[in-house]
């Protein structure tokens, strides 16, 4: 048998560029499909129903930039969608994706009420049409001391709040996740008080960084990431960013979140990322970056100090953790 010379084998760079070409060709084809369907804008087809595959799911993940403003690389799409803290499904981060794959995200409504002048129940697709989607590349810092960088899609919460007009007596915003133990088996666990509840002060909720996210990497959110819509508050620990929201209420009293109820000495209402205030059981001074090796120092307010520090002037951050 004739021996194949190593020089006859396709060199790696050529081989790789061939793969890249195929990938790009696929991108162009898929992209053309999106353009045709959406008229040039990345938004949900208003006629989408539960039985249809929403636009965006078959398109490849994409983002407007490859890093955040500090130069930290985006966490790869597979990691973002397969490493999830979502106790409604399971406490196993690698198991959420599979357990949530049949989660029904359409039809879906969000009831916005409480101390507002215009309470209204929104269909999630109407919300998308009304407020659109913009990309925001945010760092996500989990209280367990790991972090990601994620290109979210969504709209700032203040757009929605302005429309319902909070009354002067409203001091806090209270968010609630869907309660459906049949679909979310983790909600059968007696260790937590379901449904998941989170809260923000009204001025925090009105801050431009506070996002209602409906997608990531140019695609619709998958159930494991909190589909169809979730909160993203990048300067707070990840657990504040409540998923699969069905209810938003403006209230006078500070809401008690699920974690505050479960372990009040460990989880406070504010939960601002703060390397100087340790969690009782682990240090918050540094973090493991998912997909990267080694630790990096944690930044005050997760690197959003300039934008959000004024919200907390005069507040004892050690006491109000």
């Amino acid at each position, binding site marked *: 048998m004739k021996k194949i010379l190593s020089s006859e084998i396709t060199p790696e760079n050529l081989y790789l560029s061939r793969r890249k070409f195929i990938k790009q060709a696929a991108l162009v084809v898929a992209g053309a499909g999106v353009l045709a369907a959406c008229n040039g804008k990345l938004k949900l087809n208003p006629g989408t129903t539960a039985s249809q595959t929403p636009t965006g799911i078959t398109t490849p993940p994409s983002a407007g930039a490859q890093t955040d403003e500090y130069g930290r690389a985006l966490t790869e799409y597979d990691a973002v969608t397969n*490493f999830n803290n979502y106790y409604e499904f399971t406490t196993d981060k*690698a198991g959420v994706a599979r357990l949530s794959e049949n989660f029904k995200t359409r039809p879906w409504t969000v009831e916005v009420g409480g101390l507002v002048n215009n309470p209204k129940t929104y269909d999630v697709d109407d919300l998308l049409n009304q407020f659109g989607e913009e990309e925001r590349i945010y760092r996500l810092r989990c209280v367990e001391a790991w972090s990601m960088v994620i290109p979210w899609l969504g709209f700032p919460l203040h757009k929605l709040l302005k429309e319902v007009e909070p009354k002067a007596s409203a001091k806090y915003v209270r968010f609630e996740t869907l309660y459906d133990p049949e679909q979310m088996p983790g909600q059968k666990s007696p260790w*937590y008080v379901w449904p998941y509840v989170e809260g923000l002060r009204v001025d925090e909720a009105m801050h431009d960084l506070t996002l209602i996210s409906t997608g990531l990497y140019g695609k619709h959110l998958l159930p494991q990431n909190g589909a169809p819509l979730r909160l993203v508050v990048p300067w707070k620990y990840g657990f504040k960013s409540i998923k699969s929201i069905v209810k938003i209420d403006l209230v006078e009293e500070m809401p008690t979140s699920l974690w505050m109820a479960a372990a009040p000495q460990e989880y406070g209402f504010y939960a601002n990322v703060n390397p100087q205030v*340790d969690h009782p*059981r682990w*240090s918050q*001074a*540094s973090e493991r970056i998912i997909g990267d090796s080694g630790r990096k120092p944690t930044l005050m307010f997760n690197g959003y100090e300039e934008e959000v520090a004024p919200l907390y002037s005069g507040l004892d951050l050690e006491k109000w953790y």
Partner: protein
Amino acid sequence: MVLKKWFSFTRFQLLVHGASLLPFLILVVNYLTGNLTYDPIQAAMQRTGRYAMVLLLISLTCTPLNTILGFRPALKVRRALGLYAFFYASLHFFIFSVLDFQLNLSLILREIVYKRYIIVGTLALVILIALAITSTQRSMKRLGKLWKTLHQLVYASAILVILHFMWVVKSDIREPLLYGAVLALLLLVRIPAIRKKLSARPPRWIAPVNRALAK
């Protein structure tokens, strides 16, 4: 010489060695093939911690298995099981200090000094180190009566390990409680009065089992 010793192992001993090393092999394969979740450091840390705890508990079953059931082969693997527990505990600490904290001493010290679960975990490991060092026949002879007292510290180490686990999990403490219950049971059957009562009548089937496993 070494080969001869290896072949003098009974099948039961080989089984115990194989079963104790298997999780390490799987861990390495999972690591090399990228099947250790997207946070491999945490996954490896949790796995090695769990293996160390389970092996420590299994090593503590050896004595009662012999005294109560008359299951003699257990004594032949007791030391090995303890050393495997120590091996996984060391790996656990290595992942924490070298892979995760990259030997950043100020950060590591901050963790060890301020975090109660790390304090108890470190203490448990320190005990295991002392026991591993003195696990040889020579140490046994040299230390005499002191050896037994020293090695009774394994009970303290096991209790600290359970505490470590209990304090590290979030709200749901079912798993640590389960392991804690197993440890409580293993300690209870060591109380002389209870041990005597239980060991009064070893089961008849144990003799053939012992014979079969002695090969």
